[in-house]
């Protein structure tokens, strides 16, 4: 069974640290990796792919040196490997045009504006990961204790196996 990664893309090291710390209770089940730019992120995605693992969720800043966050998300939506990855934009400065592009072309799942509250971010990430495992996994039991249990039980019920 392959690992499901969470990746966080953020150019400011202090902010990246806070994001990763806010999500650390998920680390045991979903390895968390950080990247400082879109280019870093591409390299990371390739490494994860080559190891035979998957990416369940990406938390991405928008304004960064080099390619913008939305460009990266659009690119990921086009790539089969990262199409089912849940995509969250975590930013304070994405303009209307960029946001529209993210929704239409990258199928953005959530938009979280800075500054965020830890509980809110955690809840959003957990819900998105829950949808990801329901969509892609056959055996949901390993996730009951970490993700949204009600949603998962509901999915087990409707699958209806003995």
């Amino acid at each position, binding site marked *: 069974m392959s690992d499901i990664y969470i990746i966080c893309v953020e150019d400011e090291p202090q902010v990246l640290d806070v994001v990763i710390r806010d999500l650390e209770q998920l680390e045991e089940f979903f390895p968390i990796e950080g990247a400082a730019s879109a280019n870093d992120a591409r390299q990371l995605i390739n490494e994860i792919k080559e190891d035979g693992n998957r990416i369940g969720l990406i938390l991405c800043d928008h304004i960064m040196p080099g390619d913008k966050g939305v460009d990266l998300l659009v690119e990921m939506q086009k790539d089969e490997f990262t199409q089912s990855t849940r995509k969250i934009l975590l930013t304070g400065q994405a303009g209307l045009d960029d946001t529209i592009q993210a929704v239409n072309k990258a199928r953005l799942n959530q938009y979280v504006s800075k500054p965020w509250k830890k509980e809110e971010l955690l809840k959003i990430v957990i819900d998105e990961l829950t949808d990801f495992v329901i969509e892609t996994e056959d055996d949901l039991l390993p996730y009951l204790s970490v993700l949204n249990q009600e949603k998962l039980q509901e999915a087990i019920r409707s699958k*209806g196996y003995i």
Partner: protein
Amino acid sequence: MPGKSKQKSNQIKFLTGLILGIIGFCLPLFFTFSGLSYAGHIALGIFLMAAVFWMFETIPIYSTSMLVIFLQVVLLSQQGVIFSDASLPTTTAKQHTSDSWLVPAEAVDGERIYIANDSRNYTAIDVKILDRADWVEIRSNELQTDAKIVSNANHKLVGYKPVSFSLFFGTLASPIIILFLGGFMLAGAAVKYNLDKNLTSVLLKPFGTKPGFIVLGLMVVTATLSAFMSNTATTAMMMTVAIPIVAQVAREDKFRIVLALCIPIAANIGGMATPIGTPPNAIAIANLGQQGINIEFGTWVVMMLPLVILLLFLAWLTMRFLFPTKLREFKLSLKVDFNKSRPAIILYLLFAATVLLWFTESVHGIPSSMVAFLPIAGLTVTGVMKQEDIRSLPWEVLWLVAGGIALGISMENTGLAMWLVSSISWDAFPQIVLLGVFGLVALNLSNFLSNTVTATLVIPLAISMGTSGIAGEGFSLVISSLAIAAACNMAMLLPISTPPNAIAMSTGFIKTPDMVKVGIVIGLIGIVATLVLSQLYWPFIIN
């Protein structure tokens, strides 16, 4: 998520299972067991391989069932590679004196020889052995001049009459499978239109807000639903009801354990209540059906219900004692919102009609599997169940049971089951001891294996002990089959024992020792209660 070491141990388990399975299959090819027919050796190979694969889950348990049917069709059917052009080797007995005959030594099987009626059929006759040499001198009144006798008593056609391959394939459409399919259709439609959730809300209301009664309510509702639906789906659905309650309980309060544990336990127990409750029940009914014994839906319920009620109550008391709560009251928000669309109404009517007909078989005499076709046809004709709904039914469970039934057929008709149990003189033991042994074996196996697989392996043995008479006087096929099926369903010691247990454990609210404590009480008292019922109650229902 699983570490490298777990992957490695899985790999070792897979290879061990694979190698042992292949050894098991080949063993009877290299060793000849006396008293077991040629076909019995093949059936033994299939049996050993299937048992290993089922135990180690080398391949998914339903694919083991498919493999069993495949091997039976190829190796044991009349049209298969071994029996398709087989014919009995024959010779003529030579008249020696006025009342004795000479036959080849290989033609004699103990004090018996076989007269060939045609190339595949024979009649066994008892003879008196007078002298043994290269040719054996025998005496029998049944031998006539020119009688063709089978010249090799160990031939593959002796002791086994090959059956058509369609018998093995046909297990997938056997009455009990159709009964289950009817149950699946009803359960699938109930989930689709949220009938299960709404029923839960309605049924839970009278139980109030006190913790003890809420738990009792959860258990009663879970058991009732799981008697008609899959135990797993019922558990998952009831967990969505229990989770909001758990959120109201302090982390250190042991009542959290009760809430997470009561549901899988009730689901396991509730499965015993009806023939369609869980697959082991199907195995019991199918094996009895092969012997021409029909168990009515209502009869099954009447026999099992006291056991179900007793075990539910016992589990409730045990958990109350082990995990007391400090809380006095809960808020329950139960929304009742019955779907009133046309397909939902059709479902309600068909559901009610089917269950009513199932319970009144003694009045109208229509077998339950025929009734089961009412929802199968009714729900599809009216478009309540659509193509994608039918595709999402748990078909692999039907294959699992069908493979189990097919294996049972070969264990019986090759004489394998007989041979396996005949080494011990069972009639020295009273019936209740035999039942106790079968019950404990089934309970122990079933704690580690799939309940269905355990029933598949154990029930044919009990049946052949009964039919052959080696179990002694008073050994009832119905009682022993039901007792074993019940024992299989009582196994809930460990997270791996049943899928509902696995769900409960995965919630993170309970630890294995909590489950073991309650599981031991239910298993042991359950077996004792089954034995008591088998002596004092079941005989009156059957007669």
